[in-house]
């Protein structure tokens, strides 16, 4: 890790800690060098803002992992200037939990959030245009959930 990445990392952690446990639950460095931050759902937006303010201007991806009893929302960014990678995570219940959108922080989060909504059914409150992206509007269920059962009868195509 170079010097500027180290500085960015310590500045970011300091900014995140300022919010106390309401914005940062824990952090560690992943084996691939990324700084992993775990935020509570209520502090997700605030921590995302802190990450953006620390110069993480590139969005790698925003997605979700279905762990059976809960979802983990994963948002990964990196910085042009320092090369630091930050992976921001928050845990959601499978049903009923909404998270605030980050489309105003990263332009490309727009489609990534639409895709996550489509595939997992996570609702991003404040998203300007939350429609399904890859599946058709009339699709039933959210295919990347682990408990998804495909009910499409491919012998009688009904989506064409």
């Amino acid at each position: 890790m170079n010097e500027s990445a180290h500085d960015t990392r310590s500045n970011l952690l300091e900014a995140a800690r300022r919010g106390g446990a309401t914005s940062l639950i824990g952090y560690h460095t992943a084996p691939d060098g990324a700084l992993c931050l775990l935020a509570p759902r209520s502090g997700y937006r605030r921590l995302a803002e802190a990450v953006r303010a620390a110069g993480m201007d590139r969005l790698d991806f925003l997605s979700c992992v279905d762990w059976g009893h809960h979802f983990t929302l994963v948002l990964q960014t990196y910085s042009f200037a320092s090369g630091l990678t930050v992976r921001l995570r928050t845990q959601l219940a499978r049903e009923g939990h909404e998270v605030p959108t980050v489309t105003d922080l990263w332009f490309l989060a727009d489609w990534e959030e639409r895709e996550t909504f489509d595939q997992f059914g996570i609702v991003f409150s404040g998203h300007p245009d939350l429609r399904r992206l890859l599946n058709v509007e009339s699709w039933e269920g959210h295919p990347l959930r682990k408990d998804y059962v495909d009910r499409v009868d491919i012998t009688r195509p009904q989506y064409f």
Partner: protein
Amino acid sequence: MSTDDTRRDEHLDAAGHAGASETTAADSGGGAVDPGAATTAEDTAATAPAAPPPAAPPADETVGNAPERLVPEGEYEPPEDVQDFLINIGPHHPGTHGVMRLVTRLDGERVAGLDVRIGYMHRSLEKIVENRSYHQVIAFTDRTADYLAAMHNDWVYCLAAEKLMGIAVPERAEYLRVIVGEMNRITSHLMSVGALGLDSGAPTYFLWTFNAREKLVRLFEEICGARLTYVYMRLGGVIYDAPPGWTGRVRAALRDVLDEFPSYRNLFHDNYIWHERSKGVSRLTPEEALRIGAHGPVLRSTGTRWDLRRDMPYSIYDRFEFDIPVGTTGDVYDRTEVRFQEIIESAKIIQQAIEDLPEGPILAPRVPRLPTPAPGEVYARLESPRGEIGCYLVSDGSMKPYRMKWRGASFHNVAMLPALSVGYTLSDLINIVGTIDPVMGDVDR
């Protein structure tokens, strides 16, 4: 006239009426779609691939008063400015480079708004690989994702999986990966700039670049037996060694390709018509490029010298000398020019890699047939011809990936399409789509 003839006449009459009513219905359907409004289920279902027009009014009512009928009453408020209207491009259109639908809001001839609809080729790569072993995934990454740069897709998956399992790749395999990866960048860029010629009315250029591409594709066939979906990279290295004399033939093919460049310039890149069509179209400043998250050739065309091969070196790219071509204005011309120059730089890298190619094994020893990596997560990114691609792998300790998230370069390129094309004319839009070089397999996955 026999009975049969009468029947046929009746049939023809009916067909004529049906044809007339269909045309009118398509017109009124086009006028009634509002891209700003949230799409209802019926709307999308009706505009799915076959796109059947909405129920047509009886033919006899519409004949003669078509202009009034274009906008059904009560459904759509026509704007004050009558020049503002919608045009639908795709999903089947040569200008979309695949199955993509562009619902374009036009003000006169200028694009005032753009709603990109994708997903027509969605095969759910991420769900498929959750039911495959780590080795089996490779065959899906090069088919289901970006098939014009299949080597890079396999490579990024291998990088992620190797990081996850702690596999060290032998030297010779790294060099072979760089050689085939850069060759694939050349074939992909030749396809891209050639297709741009096709989009802008110069089909000859497409045939020329396709011909040049063929020389390298034959060499892919020699080394791995496939021309498009290679499955050449495996966990821990590559599967076949270079056949005898292959490196010499690569050099000869590169020389042939580069020798053609002056004629490409004469035909297309220095052509007055192309300059008129491309210069100043879809300008992008470095700040705006950063805001919309541009990457790859689109970002470099704005003058930002950012290339993962140099700035976050993966594999062995820190050992090679090469330039990063950049543009100045970020317009259509610069994006094409950046791709064109990158072919020359890729050729330089291949020359160096062939010179330094060491002897030795090509596959890491003791890679399990059924790997079960320790629980964990990993992300790998690399610079594909279309920009940054990435693979996020999550393992739960079983023999199948628990979750894979694919970051497609084309997906993000298409997502920024509205930001690039609003304000330019409809004919420019086709060229802009060409310069972001979308591969719909990578967008829809």
